[in-house]
């Protein structure tokens, strides 16, 4: 089942109290782009070395005792060519009790390749033996399969011409290689045609880019090697275009509570730090992120991607397509499309999907997030949602009986799933319309739904919060003025944070929930930069002057003229109009914006920044750079 996300979290949390991590503990880095390529490269390599040194010197174990090394530490020691005998012994020891799936597979692949010329034959043989004796589970998610098949592919290439009985799969090297190759090409073609299912990944980005980096470095087949390298650029370009000062913004297919409220708290931040240098890394360098470091010196993020992440010319709107996780049952479509909007400005970002059911457990549908000089510990977000919990949704997406699923999900690492005060997840009873920095979210919730109310998240880091007699709630986050309009009466409740993972204890982090127990409901949020107004009062006056009419019965419907002068009309389950014109979702491209552009089903991405351009064409497997 879909449970491996917990391992990301366990790994991440286990690193929280590790030894010194200069970039994590120090002041936030500069967000000024480094335009000198040599200096940029030198700074990048310094960051890479920081990670390798931390891991080799003990990492999360706080010791370099060979008997306590994990595979990430061994990888770092191999890079430093130190204590190789101890590493070999430890590998033999670890391989005597192998794991059972993609989270075990890709680290062992890392050691198998890195250790080829450094570890003892016995150590290398122990890895190979484990791949014979221990059945590896493929998992059931997009990231599982990426890790699984990249790992299988590389091991099959490393040990070619070996018989079926020498592999856990019971298939020969050539059979394993062919199957893995076929899937990887299929997945890459799908992702570059209609988008990823696990789009905008907060944590899972590591599960893609780490094995892809292995592929780009170690694959012998030039086609697969090239595809790996191109896919790496593709995903990092998406990361760059969806970050603000290195922090990932916009909706997510799958995330967790920590990342939903503290947007920096994600493995994506580790990769922003490593590649772009514009935000601190998370604790323990993202946990799994340690496996990117040993080969990181072989990668250089293309300048066009670096510049997108660090050198913004102004506000921009990015509209993308993605797809929903597979609905095995009770749906007319296997993977319905996702329409994703992200509007980024200097001070804040506004992002959304159209709502509806996406990933049943971990989706994050929309929010406004503001920039913070130091994002660590800042809950820089505002959003609302319907806390949907449903056996039916579980049954539609997972191959199990529905009845035990909710308890199973909450027990197995997603403790908030069945909480009425949760702040994560999508709902079939939510519809969202976004135009620039205005969001309208409407709710039409059946009375017999498990949690018949909506939750709005109000951060501890908001200042100047006031409930205006007009019905608007005004607040400021960083240099962003925020106006939040609940469409039905509400009460305030303390927000208690699930620490994710297996944590049973909930913590009061200072935030509040706006809870509105009305089935016909809605939220309007308008954001603006503080610099646009003389003062906060002027912002309030401007908002109060905006034409707004709405009704909740029989179906929630809003007509609102935004701060940007756009006339928005939106009725639940109808296509919204902007200035009288219906948004034509059918015409949405895979990527459309100033930086990323791709036609649907084209398998071709054009990455642009100023005069710089890189085209990734998966039809011809070519990468074309030019300066316009």
């Amino acid at each position, binding site marked *: *089942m879909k449970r491996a996300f917990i*391992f990301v979290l366990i790994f991440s949390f286990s690193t929280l109290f590790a030894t010194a991590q200069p970039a994590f503990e120090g002041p936030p880095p500069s967000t000024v782009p480094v335009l000198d390529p040599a200096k940029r490269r030198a700074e990048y390599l310094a960051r890479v070395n920081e990670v390798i040194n931390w891991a080799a010197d003990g990492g999360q174990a706080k010791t370099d005792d060979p008997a306590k090394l994990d595979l990430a530490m061994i990888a770092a020691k191999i890079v430093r060519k130190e204590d190789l005998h101890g590493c070999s012994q430890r590998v033999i020891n670890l391989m005597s009790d192998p794991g059972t799936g993609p989270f075990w597979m890709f680290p062992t692949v890392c050691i198998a390749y890195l250790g080829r010329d450094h570890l003892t034959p016995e150590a290398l043989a122990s890895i190979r033996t484990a791949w014979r004796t221990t*059945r590896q589970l493929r998992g059931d998610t997009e990231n599982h399969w990426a890790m699984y098949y990249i790992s299988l592919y590389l091991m099959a290439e490393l040990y070619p011409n070996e018989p079926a009985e020498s592999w856990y799969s*019971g298939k020969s090297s050539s059979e394993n290689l062919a199957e893995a190759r076929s899937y990887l090409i299929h997945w890459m073609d799908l992702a570059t045609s209609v988008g990823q299912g696990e789009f905008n990944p907060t944590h899972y980005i590591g599960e893609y880019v780490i094995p892809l980096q292995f592929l780009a470095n170690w694959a012998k087949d030039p086609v697969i090697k090239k595809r790996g390298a191109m896919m790496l650029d593709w995903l990092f370009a998406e990361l760059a275009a969806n970050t603000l000062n290195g922090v990932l913004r916009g909706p997510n297919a799958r995330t967790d509570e920590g990342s939903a409220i503290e947007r920096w708290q994600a493995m994506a931040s580790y990769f922003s730090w490593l590649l772009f240098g514009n935000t601190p890394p998370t604790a323990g360098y993202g946990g799994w992120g340690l496996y990117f470091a040993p080969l990181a010196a072989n990668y250089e993020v293309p300048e066009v991607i670096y510049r997108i992440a660090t050198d913004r010319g102004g506000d921009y709107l990015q509209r993308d397509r993605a797809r929903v996780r597979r609905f095995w049952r009770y749906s007319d479509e296997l993977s319905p499309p996702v329409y994703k909007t992200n509007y980024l400005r200097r001070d804040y970002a506004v992002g959304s999907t159209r709502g509806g059911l996406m990933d049943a457990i971990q989706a994050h549908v929309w929010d406004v997030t503001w920039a913070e000089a130091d994002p660590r510990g800042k809950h820089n977000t505002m959003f609302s949602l319907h806390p949907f919990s449903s056996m039916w949704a579980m049954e539609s997406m997972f191959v199990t009986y529905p*009845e035990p699923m909710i308890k199973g999900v909450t027990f197995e690492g997603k403790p908030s799933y069945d909480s009425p005060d949760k702040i994560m997840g999508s709902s079939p009873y939510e519809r969202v319309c976004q135009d620039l920095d205005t969001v309208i979210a409407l709710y039409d919730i059946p009375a017999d739904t498990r949690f018949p109310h909506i939750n709005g998240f109000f951060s501890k880091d908001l200042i100047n919060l006031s409930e205006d007699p007009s019905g608007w709630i005004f607040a400021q986050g960083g240099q962003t003025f925020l106006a939040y309009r609940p469409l039905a009466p509400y009460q305030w409740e303390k927000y208690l944070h699930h620490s994710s993972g297996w944590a049973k204890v909930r913590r009061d982090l200072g935030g509040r929930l706006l809870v509105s127990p009305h089935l016909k409901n809605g939220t309007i949020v308008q954001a603006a930069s503080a610099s646009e107004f003389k003062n906060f009062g002027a912002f309030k006056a401007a908002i109060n002057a905006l034409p707004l009419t709405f009704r909740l019965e029989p179906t929630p419907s809003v007509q609102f003229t935004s701060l940007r002068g756009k006339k928005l009309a939106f009725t639940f389950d109808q296509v919204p109009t902007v200035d009288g014109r219906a948004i034509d979702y059918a015409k949405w491209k895979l990527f459309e914006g100033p930086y990323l552009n791709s036609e649907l089903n084209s398998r071709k991405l054009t990455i642009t920044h100023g005069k710089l351009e890189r085209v990734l064409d998966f039809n011809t497997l070519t990468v074309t750079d030019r300066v316009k």
Partner: protein
Amino acid sequence: MNTKTPAFILFGLLALRILASAAPAYDFFVCANINRNYVIGSKIVTTNGVFQRDASGEWQHLGYNDTGISALAFDPRDRNVIYTTGLNGLWRSLDGGKLWRMCNDWTMTEARDVAVDPHDPDHVYLALPDGVAFSSDRAQTLVRRENGLPTRGKYTQVLQIDRTRAGRVLAGCELGVYLTEDAALHWHQVLPTKEMVFDIQQSPHDPLVWLAVTQSSGAWLSLDGGQTWKKFAAVPTTYPLYNITFDVTNPQRLAIGSWGLGVLTSEDGGQTWIDRNAGLPAPHRVWRVGVDPVGQLYASVVAETLYVSSDFGRTWKTDSLAGSVVNKFLIQPKSAH
């Protein structure tokens, strides 16, 4: 010349047949997960997978230690040929469980059930969350055979092969029971349901008698080999019915396992049903029921363990397979091998 056999010889022969038929002619297997809280990537710390009940009543582990086996089947010609389903799809062993091959590729996943045609044992059928696959070469290769299944709504939970006719198979799907009579080349619906069909069984006593249980449409009986179905009026539809079983020792005995209803039994061929949860832990959430070759009834209780009853549910005791969740009970005619 008309010769007559003396009466005492006839009675003697009959007695011998009765004695022979009284001896268990079946083997009994379970697919059991004992490793609680397993998640992808973690270590497996207990022995899980296929177990066979031996003559002394002990469970003997067979094959691979896998926490997620959902079903198993054997080649009737050779008990060393074993098929199991799970997260990766279909696994096959040709040597009694020492070596295994993952038969499917990435186009198939999370298989729910596997069945081998006793009349054509090279023919293997695989139930998938998105349809049905078929093999004519002992699962060396698998192809989709879904003609007649709906484009959407073909989630297949269970496959049962009619032991009387090659290529005749019933499939329990998202929207009903489907029948093929030509080895899955064509399917047609024989029982529509609003939601999932969770189990289908053919009577070991009369091959024309079939049973089916569903998520929300109750329990059903067919007396014509699955062509037409009649609902068991006495079985509630308030809770999902996860599985149903016959008793090989008594054609009148049936049992249902249900989330919510627990164990229901009938001892009159399904006319009346009795709640048999006294002695089982509450709430009454039963994952599977099964009956072994000597008529002992088993109930795998969710989050608890396996229970066994020697009086068809009147009293229960815990079974020796402690802490297990049983995904499948399989009763198989004894193999010559």
